[in-house]
C-alpha cells in the first residue's frame, strides 16, 4: 500500500516531510480529483501522502500585533463565517464562491495557494491583501510574499522539506476588500476571470489601492499601474479609471471557457464593476 502519513504534531509532520517528501494534503479538494483524473486513464496514484488534518494549530484565524494569521488549514467556510474587518470582504466573498458548500467546508486557504491554479479564487485576494506565506521546515520557518511564492503555472517556491503553515495578512486600518468572479454558471464553476481589490480611502479619495486579476495569466497578477492611477482619485469616479493599457501585463489564454479577447474585455469590465462597488 502506498505510504499515507497522518502525523499528530507539527514536529512529526515536518520530520516526515523532510524524510519522505510526501505530498501535503489538507482538505483534499484538489488532490482527490487529481487522483481520480489519473486513474481514469490507467495511471494509479503512487505519490506518498502527508495528511495534515490531525496536526494541531493549523486552523483558524487569529489577530496578531502586525495583523492576522490565517492557519494553513483554515477552510473557506471558516473564512466566510469568522467575524473579520472589511479588509477581508473580498476574501470572504471568494470563500462563498469556491465550488459548492461541500468544497467550502473542506478546501483550505493554503491548499488553494499551493495548487497555484491560475483560476484559484483565493490567490488574487491574497495578492490584494499583500499576504505573506509562512513556510515551515525542520530547519526553521521563513516568510515570503505570496507574489513571490507562486512562481508559475501551478508552480510554487515551496521547498522539498517545507509545509505551508499559515498566511499572514498585514493590518491595513480602514481598508476594504472586494472580489468579483465571472463563470459560466452559478455554482461549482471555475472562473473565466476574477478581480480582487483592497482599497483605502480618505475623505472620499483613494489613498491606496491594491488590485489583482486572476485567470487571465499563468499566475494571478497585481496591476501596479492601475493602482498608481487610482491614487487620489475620488472613490465615486474610481470605476472610470481602468483602461485596457492597465491590463497590458496580462496574457489571457483561449480555452474551453473563454477566448483571449473575451477575457481581456471581461477583465476590464470586472475591474470597473469591482471599483464601482466600493462607491456603492
Amino acid at each position, binding site marked *: 500500500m502506498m505510504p499515507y502519513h497522518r502525523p499528530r504534531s507539527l514536529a512529526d509532520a515536518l520530520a516526515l516531510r523532510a524524510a519522505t517528501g510526501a505530498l501535503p494534503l489538507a482538505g483534499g479538494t484538489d488532490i482527490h*480529483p487529481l487522483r*481520480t483524473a489519473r486513474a481514469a*486513464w*490507467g*495511471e494509479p496514484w503512487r505519490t506518498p501522502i502527508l495528511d495534515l*488534518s490531525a496536526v494541531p494549530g493549523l486552523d483558524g484565524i487569529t489577530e496578531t500585533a502586525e495583523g492576522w494569521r490565517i492557519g494553513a488549514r483554515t477552510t473557506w467556510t471558516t473564512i466566510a463565517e469568522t467575524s473579520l474587518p472589511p479588509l477581508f470582504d473580498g476574501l470572504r466573498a471568494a470563500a462563498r464562491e469556491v465550488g459548492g458548500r461541500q468544497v467550502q467546508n473542506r478546501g483550505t486557504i493554503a491548499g488553494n495557494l499551493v495548487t497555484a491554479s491560475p483560476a484559484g479564487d483565493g490567490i488574487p485576494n491574497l495578492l490584494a491583501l499583500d499576504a505573506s506565506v509562512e513556510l515551515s521546515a525542520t530547519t526553521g520557518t521563513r516568510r515570503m510574499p505570496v507574489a513571490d511564492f507562486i512562481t508559475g503555472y501551478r508552480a510554487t517556491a515551496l521547498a522539498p522539506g517545507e509545509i505551508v503553515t499559515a498566511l499572514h495578512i498585514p493590518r491595513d486600518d480602514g481598508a476594504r476588500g472586494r472580489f468579483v468572479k465571472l463563470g*459560466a454558471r452559478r455554482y*461549482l464553476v471555475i472562473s473565466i476571470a476574477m478581480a480582487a481589490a483592497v482599497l483605502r480611502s480618505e475623505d472620499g479619495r483613494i489613498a491606496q489601492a491594491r488590485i489583482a486579476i486572476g485567470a487571465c495569466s499563468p499566475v494571478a497578477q497585481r496591476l501596479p499601474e492601475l493602482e498608481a492611477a487610482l491614487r487620489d482619485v475620488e472613490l465615486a469616479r474610481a470605476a472610470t479609471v481602468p483602461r485596457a493599457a492597465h491590463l497590458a501585463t496580462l496574457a489571457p489564454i483561449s480555452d474551453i471557457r*473563454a477566448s483571449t*479577447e473575451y477575457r481581456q474585455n471581461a477583465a476590464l469590465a470586472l475591474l470597473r464593476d469591482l471599483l464601482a462597488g466600493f462607491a456603492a
Partner: protein
Amino acid sequence: MIELLVNGARHEVAADPFAPLSDTLREGLGLTGTKEGCNAGDCGACTVLMDGAQVCACLVSTAQAEGAAITTIEAADPLLDALRAAFLARGAAQCGVCTPGMLMAALDLLRRNVAPDRATVEDALGGVLCRCTGYLQIIEAVLDAARGTPAPVPARASVGAAIPRLDGAAKVDGTERYGADTAPEDALWLRVVRSPHARARFTLGDLEAARAAHGLAAILSARDVPGVNAFGIMPNLKDQPVLAEGEVRFRGEAVLALVGTRAAVEAVRHADLPIAWEPLPGITGTRVWQADADDAPQLHAHAPRNVLVRGRLARGDARRSGGAAGALRVVETSFVEHAYIEPEAGHALPTPEGVTVIACTQAPYMDREETARVVGLPEPAVRIIPTACGGGFGGKLDVSIQPLLAIAARRLNRPVRVVYSRGESMASTTKRHPARLTAFLNADAEGRFTGFGMDAIFNTGAYASWGPTVANRVPVHASGPYRVPNVANQSVALYTNDTPAGAFRGFGVPQSAIATECLVDDIAEELGLDRWEIRRRNALGKGDVTPSGQVLHASAGLPACLDALKPDWEAALARVAAHNATQPRERLGAGIACMWYGCGNTAMTNPSTMRITLARDGTLTLFNGAVDIGQGSTTVIGQIAAEALGLPLAALRQVVGDTALTPDAGKTSASRQTFVSGRAAADAAKALRARLLALANAGDGAALSLDGTRLTVRDAHTTRVTDLAALEADITAEARYDPPTVPLDADGQGVPYATYGFAAQVALVRVDTVLATVKVEEIVVAQDVGRAVNPLLVMGQIHGGVAQGLGLALMEEFIPGRTENLHDYLIPTAGDMPRIRIHLVEDPEPEGPFGAKGVGEPALVPTAPAILSAIRHATGVCITQVPVLPHRLHAAMKGHRA
C-alpha cells in the same frame, strides 16, 4: 484498521487510509446509500455530514474521517424524515441518484438555519448536481420541510391524480439499488483499458505474461469474444467492436478488459501493458464537417465517404417557394453529454444456461439481444435484470458494460462487476450529435410559410449507434410544428473519429429546432410581425397535413398552447420594454419557440406487451417491462392499469423490466412508454377486467373490489363474490400495442408516428451586455400532453427538460479529450434555473391510454430556441452557435455593433 463513527455506530474497517470515505462507506461498510457520481467533488452525489457539515465523501480520505461523526442517508433522524416526506410529496426525486446527496445537503442547511429563504436553500444545494428534476421541486421540498408543511398528497390515485411516485420511498431512504450497489462480495472487478488516441492502429504483445505479472484473473482482448465482436442499435449495422481489433476509431474506445481482484485491476498502469500504438491522423475537430471529402480517412469499409446514412423528405417544391420574405441560416451545435449522475455500473453472474447481467439500462430486451450475440448464446440464455437507473436520457439505450461483463463472467465462471469512472463514462459512451444545419424558410406577405428546406450534417462519431434514427427523425420534424406546403429536407450522418453520437432526449430535433425557430423569428422581423403572431398563424392544428403527408386527425394542441401563452407573452414583452427603457447594461429579452415531436419510433414497429395477473392468492401483478429511468413510468403505467381494471392502485404489485419475468415493453426512449406501454397496460387491464366480469356474469359498469382472495363484483342489481383460491388457475391477460404507422417512401411521405406532442415556451432572459452573460429568469411552458396521467410527474419532466434545454443553449459543450469531467463540462446547477410556469393543454389522443401521449422529450425541445430568441430580443444579435458561452455572445455583439 480505521475506526469510523457512522450514524452513531462505531465500525472498524480495513481500508486504505487514502481511499475516499465514499468508497469506504460503500465497499467497506455496505452503506451504499451514499452515491458516487464523479469522485472529484464535482457532483455532490456523495454528500454526507462530517461533524454536522456537508462534505463530498469522495474528497475525504478515510483516515480523515477517524474521530469525526459521519451522518449518511441511512441515518435515523426526524428532520431527515421530514425532508424525505417533503421530497416525495413534491416529486423531488426522479431517478433518485442525487437524492441522498441533496437530502444530506438540505439536512446540513436545516440544522444551521431553521427558516431559510430560497436563496439560502440554493446556496446550500448548489454543490449537488441533479440532471432530472431541474431543481425547482427540490428547492420547494426543502422549503416545505423547513416550514413543516409538506405538499398535500391526493387521496385517490386515479388517472389524473398527482400522486407521488410509487417507487419513491427507497429513493429517499437510501435503499434504492443502482448499478454499483448490488454486486456479490466475491465478484471480481473488471476495468477497461481504453485508447488514448482518436485513431490508431495497435498490436498486442504477450497478454498472458502481463496477466501473470499483474496478478490478474484475465486480460480480455478481441480474441476472447466468444460470439460476434460487434454491437450496434441498427439490426443490420453492428459496427462497434466490444474490444477493438487492431484499430481504434475514437479516444476512449475499449481495447482490453482487465479482470481480477479490485486491488489488482486498479494497480495496473495501463502504459505498462503490452500495447504498441501507431497513432494515425483522424477526423476530429473542425475536420468533422468535411468527413465525406475525397481525402478524408475512411473509418469503415461499409461506409464510402464516411456516410453512415442519409435521410430525406420532399413535399412540393421548396426551392421555388420564395415569396414576400425569406431567410437562410447556418446553425452549429456541439456534442452534449447526458451527464446522468450514475455512471454505468453493474455485474454479471454465470448461470447454468448462460449469463445474467444486472445493470442500469434503458433497454433490457435490446441489451439481451446484443449481449447474446456477443457471447454466442441464444437470447433466452441471457437474462437482463435492470437495476434502478440513475438517469439515462438516451445514454443508456446502447449497451456499454453488458457485453464485457457477460464475456468475463462466462470466461471465469465467477461474478464480475464493473463501475465506470466518470471520465470513462464521458469518454466512451454516446453523446448528442453535433450538427451543422443550413436551413431556409420562405413566407408570403401575411407571414404564411410557403417553403422550408434544411441540409443537416450530423457528426455521428466513430460508430453508428442511433445515428440513423437521428438522421431519419430530423427531416420529418425540421420544418417545425407549422403548416408548410413545400418542404425539402435532407440529412446525412457522417462517421468521424469523435466519440460515438447516439440517442439523447429528442434525437436531433432539439438541434434542428434551434435553426427553424431562428428562421421563424427572421421572417417575423422581416415582415414586422409579432413572433407569437407568426407562430399562431402557421401552427399545425387538427385537420392539417404535415410535411410527411400525414393528416393530424386528433390531439394537435399547438394552437391551444399558443393561446394559453398569449397573456404571458404580452406581459413579458411589456416587462422587457419597461425595463430596457431605463437599463442600458442589463437588458431583458423575451423569446418564444414551438416544437412538435412524434412519439415512438419513426415509421417502424415499436410494440409493447404488458401482462397482468390476478393470482389465486389474491395478488394482483402487472408484469411491466418498461424500465423506469426516473421519469416515472412505473407510477404512470400503474395508474393507467389500475384505472382500466377498476381496482385500486394500492392493490397492484409490479414486476418491472426483467427479461425473464416481464414481456418485452420495448425501450424507454422516444417518449413512448406512457403512450405505447401505457396503452398496452390499459388494454391488458381491460382484458383482465372483462374476464373478471365474465366470471361473475356482470356487465361493463360493475365495480370490482379485492379483499385477500375474495373478489367482489358489484353492479346495480347484484353482488357476486368469487374466492380466487378456489379457481383452477390464476387469471392472466396480456395485450400488445404497436402504434399504427405507415412506412415512409423515398420522399419521406407516410405516417411516421401515431401521435405527436406539441409545445410552446416563452423565455425571459437577462443579458449583461458588458460581460455578455445570460441569466434565464423565467420559462413559461404550454404543452399538449393529451392527458396528464400524473400531473406531478408531467411537471417533473417539463422542469427537467427545461433544465437540459437551458444547458444546451448556454453552457454544455463536450469536447473529446478535454471536457471529460463535470467541472469542465458544465450542466446547470440549482442556481441557474429560471422560474417555470406551466400551462398543461390536454387535447386527448384517441390512440393513447386515457388520451395520454409522450411528455419527456417535448419538454426539452423548445427551451434552447426560446432562450436564443430572447437573447436576440435583448441584444439584437442572432446567435447561431450553441452553447452561447459569454465569449461567443460577446463576439457576436461586437460584430453586430461594428
